[in-house]
């Protein structure tokens, strides 16, 4: 892969009931990402937006943000799915001979629709949709399958929630920074056991944008470019009963490919910071295993040891993660944006000192049917 850098990032603050409409949110982050990169819109060759007609409440929702994303007068396209996938498509367009720079936007106003019902529309209308499962109840099945198999405890999951909500106190964009204890999580109301209120990501609105550029289009600006080293995505079987919910097979495959591209041999040693898609606290533990941060079933011990805390050797979700801000389709791109800030050394109070190699991760689908893994670095690949 040729060298491509992320040269600009922007996020809104995440909150519930944002008063801007989604075009205005997209304009906010597009403008800020350009400013961050020190570019004007004229420097952008093409645009990839991200929409979901169910969340946006209209068909062909990408129409609504054309002006706001800077699509007017230039090539544009639109992905439906997590922002990590839009960014991946943006990367492909940047790598082709056709475009040198790409603006990628995502927005989601989860609070405007009925997110549980919208999630239920992912289930098969001819079979199990009628069961009425949503993100919480289906993920609870995955949580138990995983926890039962490896003896992961609810307290260990709670520790993820405590860590991430605590980290969110250092992130001005976070929606739900909290100073809580394992006991608080354990005592929070059970929604679908073993998932409790404080194990669940909030309903957030927000937007995020990044700008990708080919090496010859990276200017010596005020920001340090962050280089894409490896990316891959992978999708598991559709029906829950056809999957091994106790393992993240699609994540293992995506990580294997992304690491191979990036030349990463031992992720637990080489990666300095990771931002993963923890829509539920158990997910972060399951993703540790899928990402090879530890062996199968060892995540409980990993969180207990503090390795993934801010002071540990591999801090995970210094931003507070998705547990602290969940504007669904935005959440994966926000992971990338956060990694960029880390590798620039601009992450403020959530900065992991000396971070040189970072991992960003996104999911989409029922029980994270699809995973996308990004490996980012503060230095470009060596000349071949």
């Amino acid at each position, binding site marked *: 892969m040729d060298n491509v850098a992320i040269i600009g990032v922007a996020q809104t603050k995440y909150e519930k009931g944002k*008063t801007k409409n989604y075009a205005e949110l997209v304009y906010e982050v597009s403008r800020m990402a350009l400013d961050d990169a020190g570019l004007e819109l004229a420097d952008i060759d093409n645009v990839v937006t991200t929409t979901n007609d169910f969340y946006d*409440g*209209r068909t062909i929702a990408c129409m609504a943000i054309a002006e706001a994303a800077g699509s007017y007068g230039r090539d544009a396209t639109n992905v439906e799915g997590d922002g990590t996938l839009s960014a991946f498509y943006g990367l492909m367009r940047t790598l082709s001979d056709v475009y040198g720079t790409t603006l990628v936007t995502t927005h989601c106003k989860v609070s405007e629709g*009925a997110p*549980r*019902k919208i999630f*239920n529309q992912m289930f098969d*209308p*001819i*079979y*199990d*949709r*009628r*069961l*009425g*499962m*949503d993100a*919480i*109840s*289906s993920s*609870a*099945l*995955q*949580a*138990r*399958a995983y926890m*039962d198999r490896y003896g992961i405890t609810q307290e260990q999951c709670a520790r993820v929630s405590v860590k991430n909500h605590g980290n969110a106190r250092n992130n001005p964009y976070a929606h739900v920074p909290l100073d809580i204890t394992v006991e608080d999580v354990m005592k929070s*109301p*059970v*929604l*679908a*056991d*073993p*998932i409790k209120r404080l194990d669940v990501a909030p309903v957030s609105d927000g937007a995020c944008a990044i700008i990708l550029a080919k090496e010859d289009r990276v200017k010596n600006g005020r920001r340090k470019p962050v280089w894409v080293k490896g990316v891959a995505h992978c999708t598991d*079987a*559709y*029906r*829950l*009963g*056809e999957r091994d*919910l106790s393992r993240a097979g699609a994540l293992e495959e995506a990580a294997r490919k992304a690491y191979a591209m990036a030349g990463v041999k031992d992720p637990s040693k080489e990666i300095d910071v990771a931002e993963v898609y923890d829509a539920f606290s158990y997910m972060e533990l399951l993703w540790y295993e899928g990402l090879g941060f530890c062996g199968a079933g060892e995540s409980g011990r990993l969180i207990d040891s503090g390795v993934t805390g801010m002071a540990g050797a591999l801090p995970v979700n210094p931003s507070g993660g998705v547990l602290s801000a969940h504007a669904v389709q935005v959440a994966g791109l926000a992971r990338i944006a956060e990694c960029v800030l880390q590798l620039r050394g601009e992450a403020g109070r959530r900065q992991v000192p000396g971070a040189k190699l970072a991992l960003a991760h996104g999911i989409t689908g029922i029980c994270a049917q699809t995973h996308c893994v990004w490996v980012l670095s503060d230095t470009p690949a060596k000349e071949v």
Partner: protein
Amino acid sequence: MDNETILEVREKDGLLVHQGVIRVPYTWAAGEAASQFYAGLARKVIYGIRCTHCDMVFVPPKKTCHQCFAELGEWVKVSSRGVLETFTVVHYSEPELHPVQAPFAYGIIKLDGASTGMAHIIQGVDLDRLQAGMSLEAVFKEQPEGNYLDITCFRPAGEAKGHG
């Protein structure tokens, strides 16, 4: 007000919020495999379909094996009893989604003779006593309607009680 998108208008600090709705009803073709499956349920029989290539028996059935991409056609009668693989007890209420009142349980049940699990609702059991590995049986709807709830739920299997 007929045929107007906006049902309700809220105002705060000079900013408006419009409440509206999308209501597009659907009629989904089930396809042959699902139609056969529902025809079986009407006779209180659960059918799966076998992949002659990898030997997986899919319940509910489908037309193509996702692993081998082979067309499936070998129908298999499976038991209406099986083993609970994983479950959750739902404590919140979502009346537009949930077919039964909370608290209730969802589970994934692997029927005897099937290779895949079936997601479904579990009732007729003390929810505190649910355990992975327990034996459950399908409860069939008396007036089947040709949908997934023609199995109303799974409940602890008759003579398997106590084997937990």
